[in-house]
C-alpha cells in the first residue's frame, strides 16, 4: 500500500466510524438536537422575531399564552418568545467568544508548557493557579466597578477564568503525547518543536480539547446568565436570559410564568451542550464511558 493510499483510507475510515458511533449515541443525538434548536433560534432572531423586542406595549402586558403570543408577554408587553430567541444570541455569543478566547490563549500556553518543561512549564502552571483564584464573578465585579457593565465585560471575565482550564488540559494531554515513539522519530528526523507540536501533538490532543470546550461552553452560558442576572452582563436593548430572570423576580407573586421560561431556556441549552460533550467524549475516549 502506498503512502497516498494510507492517507486516503486510514484517517477517513476512522472519521466515518466515529460519526457512525456518534449517530448511535442517544445522549449525543439528543444533545445535538437541543443545541441545534437553540442555535437555529438565535440565528433566525438575527433576521426575524415574531415581534420586535424593543417595542413596548403597556396595554398588552402580562398577556397569557395565545395564538398571537405563544408564551404571552412580559411586564412591558414584549413578546416572550421573541425575547427568548434574542436572549439565545447573547448567551451563545458571550459563551462562544469567551471560550474561544480562553482556548485561543490557553491551548498555545499549555502546548508551550508541554514542549518546554522546567521554568516555562512551571510559570504557566503558577499563572494558572493564580487565575483560578479569580472566579468570573469577581473579575466581572472589578471590571464593572471601573468601566460599567456590558457584554464585553462578561466575555472578558469568563474568558480569563477559561485560560488556565485549557492550558492545564492541553499541557497534561500533550505531555503524554510527547513521550511517544513517533515524536522521538520526528525529533530524530530533525523537525523543530513548533512543527512537531502542530503536526503530531496537536491532532492528538484536539479531540479532548473539543470535548472540554463543549463543557466550558455550557459553563460559560451559566456564568453569563448569572452575570446578566446581577446586572453585570449584556445591557438593554440586547435581550438576555439572566436579565429576564432578574426582571421576573420582582414579579414572582404576580406573573410567576415569566420566571419559568428563561430558566428552562438556560437549562435546556446547558443540558444539550453537556450531553453533546459527553457523547463526544464517549466516542473519542471510550475508557471514560458511563462515568
Amino acid at each position, binding site marked *: 500500500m502506498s503512502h497516498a493510499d494510507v492517507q486516503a483510507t486510514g484517517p477517513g475510515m476512522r472519521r466515518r466510524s466515529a460519526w457512525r458511533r456518534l449517530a448511535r449515541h442517544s445522549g449525543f443525538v439528543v444533545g445535538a438536537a437541543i443545541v441545534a434548536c437553540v442555535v437555529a433560534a438565535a440565528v433566525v432572531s438575527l433576521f426575524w422575531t415574531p415581534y420586535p423586542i424593543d417595542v413596548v406595549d403597556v396595554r398588552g402586558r402580562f398577556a397569557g399564552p395565545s395564538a398571537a403570543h405563544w408564551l404571552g408577554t412580559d411586564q412591558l408587553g414584549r413578546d416572550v418568545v421573541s425575547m427568548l430567541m434574542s436572549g439565545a444570541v447573547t448567551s451563545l455569543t458571550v459563551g462562544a467568544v469567551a471560550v474561544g478566547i480562553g482556548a485561543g490563549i490557553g491551548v498555545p500556553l499549555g502546548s508551550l508548557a508541554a514542549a518546554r518543561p522546567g521554568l516555562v512549564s512551571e510559570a504557566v*502552571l*503558577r499563572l494558572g*493557579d*493564580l487565575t*483560578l*483564584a*479569580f*472566579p*468570573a*464573578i*469577581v473579575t466581572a*465585579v*472589578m471590571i*464593572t*466597578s*471601573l468601566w460599567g457593565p456590558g457584554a464585553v465585560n462578561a466575555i472578558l471575565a469568563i474568558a480569563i477564568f477559561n485560560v488556565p482550564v485549557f492550558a*492545564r488540559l492541553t499541557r*497534561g494531554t500533550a505531555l503524554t503525547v510527547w513521550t511517544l515513539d513517533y515524536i522521538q522519530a520526528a525529533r530524530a528526523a530533525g523537525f523543530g518543536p513548533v512543527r512537531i507540536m502542530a503536526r503530531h501533538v496537536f491532532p492528538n490532543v484536539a479531540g479532548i480539547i473539543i470535548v472540554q470546550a463543549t463543557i466550558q461552553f*455550557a459553563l460559560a452560558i*451559566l456564568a453569563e*446568565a*448569572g452575570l446578566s*442576572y*446581577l*446586572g*453585570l452582563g449584556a445591557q438593554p436593548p440586547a435581550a438576555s436570559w439572566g436579565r429576564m*430572570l432578574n426582571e*421576573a*423576580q420582582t414579579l*414572582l*407573586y404576580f406573573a*410567576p410564568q415569566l*420566571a419559568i421560561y*428563561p*430558566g428552562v431556556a*438556560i*437549562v435546556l441549552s*446547558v*443540558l444539550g451542550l*453537556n*450531553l453533546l460533550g459527553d457523547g463526544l467524549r464517549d466516542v473519542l475516549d471510550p475508557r471514560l464511558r458511563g*462515568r
Partner: protein
Amino acid sequence: MLSVAVRRLAGLLATLVVASLVVFTVMDVLPGDPAQVMLGTEAREDTLAALRTRLGLDRPAPERYVTWVAGLATGNLGVSYTYDEPVAGLIAERLVVTLPLAVFAILLSTAIALPVGVFAAVRRGTPVDTVVMGLGQLGVAVPNFWFAMLLVLLFAVQLRWASAGGFPGWSAGLLPAVGALLLPAIALALPQAAILARITRSSTLDVLGEDYVRTAWAKGLSRRAVLGRHVFRNALIGPVTIMGLQFAFLLSGTIIIENVFFLPGLGRLVFQAVAQRDLIVVKDVVVILVAAVVIVNFLVDLAYAAIDPRLRVRDVPR
C-alpha cells in the same frame, strides 16, 4: 511531610501576595485616577482633590500598596466612601450572613451527596443509579439562582411555608435566623450535591474495581467493613478534589443567591458598592473573596494528604 507543608505554605503566601498585587493594580493603578472613576466626569475639582487626598493618591503606588496590604493584615481596611464607615466593620457585619450560609450549604450538599453517590455506585445499573446520574446531569445545568427562584415560588408564593427573603439577624434568635438561611442553603446545596454525588459514584466505582477491595471481599470481611474501611475512605479523594474546585463556584453562588433572597451579606455589599462606584469597598471585598478561594484550595491540598498517605511525601500531582 514537614518540608512539603512548609513549601506549600510558602506557595500559599506567594499566591496571596501576587493576587493582592493583581487586585491592587487593576483597581488602583489601571484606572489612572480612581477618584475620577468614583465621582464621575461631572465632579467638582475641589471634591476630586479631597477624595484624592483621602485615597492617598498623592503618594506613589508602591507605597499605597504596602499601606493597603499592611491594613489588610491588621484589619484596617480604610473607610467606605458611600457609607462613611470603616470597611472592616461593614465586611464583618456581612460575613455573619455569608459565611454561615456557605458553610450550611457545604454541609448540606456533602451530607446528601456522599451517601447517595456511594449507594448509586454499589447499586450500579439499577434504577437508583440511573436516577442519580440523571439528577447529576440536571444539577450541572440548573443555575442556582434560578433554582432559588423556583424554591421561592413553591415555598413562599404557593405554599406560604417560608418568607420570600430577608434576614432577621442573629439577635432575633437562632431558629428564625437559621430558618431564613434554610431556603438559600438548599438552593445552593442541591445542584452542588447532584454534581458531587456523580463524582462520588464514579470515584467509588474506581475503588470497587481495585485489587485490594477484591482481596477484602475474598478474605470474608463484612460488607460494612469493606465499604466503610476500604472503599469509602479511598473514594473520598475524588469528591474532595472537586469540593476544592467547587468552592469558587459556591462562593460565586452564595453572593448571587444573597440577591435572590435579599440577604444582607457580602454579595449585597459588593454589588451596592459596584453600583455606587465605591472602589474602596470593591477592592477590599474582592481581595477577601480571592484570598478565600486560595486558602480553601490550600486546605483541600492538605486534606488530600490526610486522606491519602501516599501524598504526604510528595506534592499533589497537577
